[in-house]
């Protein structure tokens, strides 16, 4: 027993994780390499191509929304009994993707996982853009968004009516708008020291002024850094319960209702795990091409990719547990509607969606147990893409199969999206791509000042903090 413990302690001490940054880097080289992407380097043609595709799809989104506002939600596939279709599916999918960014920037910071340093900036940007895409759906699904203001926001209006605070849809508004605001603040606070670096490195006066304006006159004073770190840590502490609450509230949209297939207590934890799962898949989808295109292999090392693969495996298993429990409680409930719903989900007209979802979200990620898969960028990328699809299918299955066969067979129906549904969905993907490509062009996609702290020279010799 004792010898076993000793062996464990020894192996813990001997464990030397691979470095977070390739050897040989100095403060200057880190600064130079990341800042150059914004300030001096030419951008690859693939960047221009990607932006072009994203921009065209965004234009399609505008077209789809314009037509929606002219004609109304009748152009979508929703009808009785499926009143919730693509809008809610895509909303939940996008908002889930955002969760990994906050997890990386906040929870991994509190857990002192310093490998987050290379990925937090663009993961936070991903969060912001995903929440922007998500926010479009609840706004436009009202069909008349200019009226949505008094349905959703509590403000004194001439009709003297107020929103219903007992509705999870109102909770959603507060959760998502708080999430967007706090994510934006977190991202901006992290950017300020880097904006100062760009200000000091910019050659052109206009660019220097622009970055100078955004950097607020940051000068790296120790008195500032001390309060800065306190505020940053507190923001991380606030964001951690926030991110858990956001997808919990999103799951309440379903779980508070009495529809079989939605009314389940497993929903909040299972939605949160699914969100992190989907988010890490999206971070990998973005990180793997980026590190090659911009030559960032020194900062986004194999260790980062492998760790993200591990997080995906763990959250994927939690999600798998959620599916098993959903099925178990369906059959165990002794409620014929619950039983029928889960049977219909597995064997009804939408069975291919359900089983593809199981294949994408439960079976495929099991390859991540194998180290050679976790350390192969191409295999990781493929698994991440499969999970992206799988998580979208999950929302489709939850929303559609729970609704399409109502309690009475006389009110059964089928739901299929129309071309406007599809154009809106792919349009938001285009918007996401556009925003992300522009971000990569104008702001440092890796936190420069935090990368300096992992350079070996950053360690103070012979001293101990505090």
């Amino acid at each position, binding site marked *: 027993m004792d010898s076993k413990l000793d062996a464990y302690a020894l192996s813990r001490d001997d464990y030397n994780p691979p470095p977070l940054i390739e050897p040989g880097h*100095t*403060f*200057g080289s880190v600064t130079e390499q990341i800042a150059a992407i914004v300030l001096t380097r030419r951008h690859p043609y693939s960047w221009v191509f990607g932006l072009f595709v994203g921009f065209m799809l965004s234009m399609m989104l505008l077209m789809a929304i314009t037509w929606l506002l002219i004609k109304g939600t009748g152009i979508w596939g929703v009808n009785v009994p499926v009143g919730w279709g693509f809008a809610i599916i895509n909303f939940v999918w996008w908002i889930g993707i955002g969760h990994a960014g906050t997890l990386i920037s906040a929870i991994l910071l509190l857990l002192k996982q310093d490998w987050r340093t290379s990925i937090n900036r663009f993961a936070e940007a991903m969060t912001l853009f995903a929440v922007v895409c998500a926010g479009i759906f609840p706004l436009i699904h009202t069909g008349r968004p200019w009226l949505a203001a008094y349905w959703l926001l509590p403000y004194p209006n001439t009709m*003297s*009516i*107020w*929103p*219903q*605070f*007992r509705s*999870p849809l109102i*909770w959603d508004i*507060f*959760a998502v708008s*708080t999430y967007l*605001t*706090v994510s934006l*603040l*977190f991202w*901006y606070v992290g950017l300020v*020291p880097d904006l100062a*670096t760009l*200000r*000091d490195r910019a050659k052109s006066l206009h660019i220097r002024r622009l970055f100078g*304006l955004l950097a*607020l*006159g*940051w*000068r*790296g*004073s*120790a*008195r*500032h*850094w*001390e*309060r*800065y770190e*306190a*505020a940053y840590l*507190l*923001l991380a502490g*606030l*964001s951690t*319960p*926030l991110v858990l*609450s956001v997808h919990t*509230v999103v799951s309440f949209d379903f779980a508070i209702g009495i529809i079989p297939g939605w009314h389940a207590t497993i929903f909040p934890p299972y939605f949160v795990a699914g969100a992190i799962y989907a988010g890490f898949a999206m971070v990998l989808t973005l990180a793997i091409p980026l590190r090659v295109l911009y030559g960032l292999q020194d900062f986004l090392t194999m260790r980062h990719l492998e760790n993200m693969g591990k997080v995906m495996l763990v959250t994927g298993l939690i999600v798998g547990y959620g599916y098993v429990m959903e099925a178990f409680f369906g059959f165990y409930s002794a409620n014929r509607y619950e039983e029928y719903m889960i049977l219909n989900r597995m064997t009804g007209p939408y069975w291919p969606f359900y089983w593809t979802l199981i294949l994408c979200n439960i079976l495929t990620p099991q390859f991540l147990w194998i180290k050679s898969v976790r350390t192969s960028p191409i295999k990781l990328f493929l698994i991440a893409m499969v999970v992206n699809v799988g998580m979208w299918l999950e929302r489709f299955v939850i929303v559609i199969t729970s609704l399409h066969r109502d309690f009475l067979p006389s009110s059964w129906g089928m739901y299929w999206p129309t071309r406007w549904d599809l154009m809106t969905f792919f349009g938001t993907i285009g918007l996401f791509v556009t925003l992300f490509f522009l971000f990569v062009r104008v702001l440092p996609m890796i936190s420069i*000042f*935090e990368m300096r*702290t992992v350079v070996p*020279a*950053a*360690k*103070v010799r*012979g*001293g*101990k*903090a*505090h």
Partner: protein
Amino acid sequence: MNHTAAGSTLYGLMAEFEDPTALVEAARRTYDEGYRRFDSFSPFPIHEVFAAMHLEDRRVPWLVLGGGITGLLAGLGLQVWVSAYAYPLNIGGRPLLSWPMFVPVTFELTILFAALAAVFGMFILNGLPMPYHPVFNVPRFTAHASQDSFFLAIEAVDPKFDRQGTRAFLQGLGAKEVNDVEE
């Protein structure tokens, strides 16, 4: 009053150091020497410097607590007022003060106000935005402070400040170079 060669007022003296270790040592000795109006500048936060300068500002956490409490009261107050007084809806005789249903919005507003207090409190306490500051007048500072070098500046208003003495003191700390900082 102290004047520089160019004839403008002297803000202070600035020393440049090679690495974080040298800056920590310099900050410690400057503090021990009795200087209080001085500051260190580094391209990333160095905890040892905070300790050496005896920095301990607890106002940000208190502001965050205040923000959180304000958000909590505002959120709860809004919902209670709307649901029970301004717009009471009798739905099957269910209670108007159904406080468990008010938890999510109260929670979100608590977080929102606390986060706003953290960010704006930090920037205001730091005196930012401040586009102009005398330290930017030192060319070495503008070119390196936000990238790869470490600086320590002692202000001329410090009671112990003496132009020749302080310069000699800074050079004695192993500074790469010591520059005048013009106001």
